[in-house]
């Protein structure tokens, strides 16, 4: 049996000296080949007594298995050594930038529009859109702004002909939706979109801007519903800790009408330059839909009532991000737009 151990030792020494797969193959033939060492050992068996034969056979087999396993192990080890070398030669400078295509960004105004859309979709609202070129009937008359109303001055709107203009708010979409529903079912919509007023552009005025209006009409829609809805929106826009304040105001299409202030997010309502020491910042106008508006769009004001609100998207963006000039939104400077990655 000592002889067997010697064979193993000799094999291992030879194996570790192998430099290539060919040498390993030769070594394997030397031991396991037809004229190899193990064949010779097997041939010794016929000279052994019958009771030793099985033991001898098993021992030779064990060496065979040993040699085969060792060769596999050795090959794997050599492979891994070569691989490690190869990987080392492939070392890269991981600080160099990757080959990505830098993603673009959604325009800040549309980011805010989508945020508000998502909030209201979650509350069960539909998002309604409509034409920007409108009849003055939809834009004014059906909103309780009759022809001689001061707010309908030709000076203040972009008229295309005496009865057509670029809409001055997205309220005509509310009118269209109410007429579409035929005065018979509840309405719960928000209307985002571009609107136009005949203003000269400066830091706080833009002849084109974005607005989102909301409208809920049902049999019991109340001002308390309006208040809860606006609070939700103010918190979504300016933070969970915000409160709102409703102040009496006037719009021809709502009665009662309110201006809505949000508690100042910079000073927490204590008073600062942002809120002009009042603790509140005006963010939107709202009110209960004027019965004339309901009537003109086919709803019976004795059965239905509702609330409406309108918010300027630019104003929200300017407040939230401290943007000082409304014209930035329409200049589209990359260095401006790309600051607002989602």
């Amino acid at each position, binding site marked *: 049996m000592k002889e067997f151990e010697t064979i193993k030792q000799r094999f291992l020494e030879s194996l570790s000296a192998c430099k290539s797969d060919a040498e390993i193959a030769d070594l394997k033939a030397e031991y396991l080949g037809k004229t190899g060492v193990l064949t010779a050992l097997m041939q010794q068996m016929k000279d052994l007594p019958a009771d030793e034969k099985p033991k001898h056979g098993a021992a030779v087999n064990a060496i065979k298995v040993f040699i085969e396993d060792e060769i596999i192990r050795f090959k794997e080890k050599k492979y891994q050594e070569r691989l490690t070398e190869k990987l080392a030669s492939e070392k890269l400078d991981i600080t160099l930038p990757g080959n990505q295509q830098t993603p673009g960004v959604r325009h800040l105004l549309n980011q805010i529009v989508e945020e508000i859309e998502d909030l209201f979709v979650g509350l*069960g609202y539909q998002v309604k859109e409509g034409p920007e070129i409108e009849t003055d009937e939809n834009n004014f008359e059906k909103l309780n702004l009759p022809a001689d109303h001061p707010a309908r001055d030709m000076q203040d709107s972009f008229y295309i002909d005496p009865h057509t203009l670029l809409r001055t708010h997205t309220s005509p979409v509310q009118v269209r939706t109410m007429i579409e529903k035929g005065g018979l079912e509840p309405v719960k919509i928000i209307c985002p979109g571009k609107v136009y007023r005949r203003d000269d552009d400066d830091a706080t005025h833009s002849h084109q801007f974005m607005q989102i209006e909301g409208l809920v009409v049902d049999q019991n829609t109340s001002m308390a519903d309006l208040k809860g809805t606006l609070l939700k929106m103010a918190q979504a826009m300016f933070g969970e800790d915000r409160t709102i304040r409703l102040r009496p105001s006037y719009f021809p299409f709502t009665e009662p009408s309110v201006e809505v202030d949000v508690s100042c997010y910079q000073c927490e309502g204590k008073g600062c330059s942002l809120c002009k020491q009042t603790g509140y910042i005006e963010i939107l106008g709202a009110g209960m839909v004027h019965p004339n508006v309901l009537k003109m769009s086919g709803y019976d004001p004795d059965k239905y009532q509702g609330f409406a609100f309108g918010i300027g998207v630019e104003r929200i963006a300017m407040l939230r991000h401290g943007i000082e000039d409304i014209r930035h939104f329409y200049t589209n400077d990359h260095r401006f737009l790309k600051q607002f990655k989602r």
Partner: protein
Amino acid sequence: MNLSFQWLKEYLNITASPQEIGVLLTKHAQEVAEVRPLFKASFLALAQVLSVEPIEGSKNKKCTVNVNGQQKTIVCGASNVAKDQTVIVALPGATLPGGKKIEVTQLAGISSEGMICSLSELGINPKFIQEEGIHVVQGPFNAEALEDMIIELDLTPNRMDLLSVLGCAYEVGALTHQKVKLPLISVTESATKNPYEIKIETDDCHAYYGRLIENITVKESPEWLKVRLMAAGIRPINNIVDITNYVMIDLGQPLHAFDHDQLTSNIIRIRNANAKEKFTTLDQQVRTLTEKDIVITDDHYPVALGGVMGGLDSEVTPDTVNVFLESALFEPKVISKTSRRLDLRSESSMRFERGVSPDRVLLALNKAAQLMAELGSGTVAKGVAEAVKKPAPPRQIEITLAKINQTLGVPLSALDIETIFDRLELPFKVQNERYQVAVPPRRIDLEIAQDLIEEIGRLVGYDHLPSHLPSTVSEGQLSPVQKKRRQVKTHLEGLGFSEVITYSLNQEKKDLPFIKTSKPVSILRPLNEANQTLKQSLVPGLLDVISYHQARQIEDVMIYEWSKSYQTDGESERLGLAMMGRVNEPSWNLTKAVDFYQIKGMVEHVLSLYGVEASYHPLDLKGYHPHQSALVVVSGKTVGQMGHVHPLVLRDYDLENVFVAELDVATLALVEKTSPAYHPVSKMPFVKRDVAFTVPLTMPASDLVDGIHQAQIDALQNVEIIDVYQGSPLKENEKSITLRVYLSKEGHTFKTEEIDQRIKSLTDALITSLKITQRL
């Protein structure tokens, strides 16, 4: 409205501070813009100048003054300071506007214990100031007025009842739970009979009252009156004009004073103007009138433009001795139209066009007449000349408790409602929780039940309303079009495009290179030349943005805009893409300049999101490179165009090499799509073979692909163009196109001969149909 707090206190006992009243008004009535002192300084006092002595070698004077019984020395540089004047002094400790601090100082060796102030040093708007130098107090004046506060109200157009101190008093009274104290006005009349006769000959004048005040002296108003006007933001002029303004601010009723001796008769006729009638207003402008305007005439000539402005010829001057005073009620809409047409907006027209309270017309006349007699040392002639149409009965509004609570969403009791009506001094009757309110003339803004709900809501305070979401149950979701829009935008951003929003108004000529037919929507009164028409193409706006960046050394730009384009036959949603520079922004190992195939790839990406494939055809639009542009067609419909912008157009923008695409996403959204049917994934291996052809340079690659499809080769799965080559050894007018063909058939494993045979018939078909050669 600038509300003087002290003036307000004439009608109410107010214990709250002006700031507290300001907060109440903002919360419950109208927004208060600011609460500020009239004189923007503290430590002010009235003083009598006892003596004035010159100081040698200085233009300053040493003044001895009496302040509340104490003698003080003040060095003053004003030339108009004189003995026996009453002046306003800022005492040590005072801070003047601009931060100037008053302390005891040594001037020319004299200890000066304060400063004698001019009005401008006290923060009074210079346009109200009539004098040079220090302010000399005229006549009786209460030192308390030095501490008056102004509550500046931003009024909404419906609350014009607050354009008077009395109107504000009703409001503040309602907020502080007290009734307004109405002063009694009595006129002391002389024996002379008022000779005037009034004739109204127009529907647009509802009432007209006149009084004659005789033997008055036109002079500077006393201090208290001037200070009141300055508090209200009105420039003092003389006692007669000032009194008309004072009563207007006090009661809200505009008045007009005529020089009685300039009127040619004692008949006042109110009529509509004649067409093209000329009239010179007191601002010395000759106005051409229309039949819609109201004129006041002295039976011969117009003497005032009713409700808007008086005439130059009958204006009260320093020489006026007798005054005819008018107080009238005009139709609001008429005043509004006249003042707008003539661009003549006055304190008077502003009040008339919003509606004044009919019950104060006579009251104001009497108050002003009495004041004129008192302050002008004259007498009021006996009787009021008047012509009055029958006033409309008070408006009645009905409302139920249920409707109030249903609208506000708060359970108010009948007592709550009644208390609020009482506080607002609105007379009402009630039966079975149904209220009938008789609207007083001062609140003509209250027209319908909802107006009363607003009164109740704001007095209860919106802070006290509960806050919850509507109970209406409804389905909330974006429409398929809205969802698709968001998806495409998100993809574009992933591809590197940033969204821009440009103005919808531009110039037709900028659109022309990018549209087939121009049907511009034009604005009647554009703000300027650059904003005359609505955009018909998105490309000019995108080029403007790119040009902006190029001018700022930003040369790699990928932008998109999702906007409408507008033509006379309608507006439709479009998507515009524009690329300049390198697709991968500055990269150390991989940058690719934008080319036609880049923008085409982007277009294909967008189209794949709509589940459609397009064919591309030569484009004939001046704005595009004639050989690097394409018309994009889906199912026989044009859905857009794309390509290299023509260098001649780019030259106008100072640009080179910009690639754009414009897609009609409104049409794309309408393309019918069948929902995808499931095919089991093939378990068969596929065979791929590459074949190359030499073709004329001008031949579109799509001819080869189409040709293969037309050959109807058995088992053909797909054809790809994998290489296009030009150059040696090909001729100059040739190119090589390599196609990769995929073959596969369910349940069949191909033998080599079978594949060869199919590739041969495919090649033969192309060679025959396109007259090209195979490149081996």
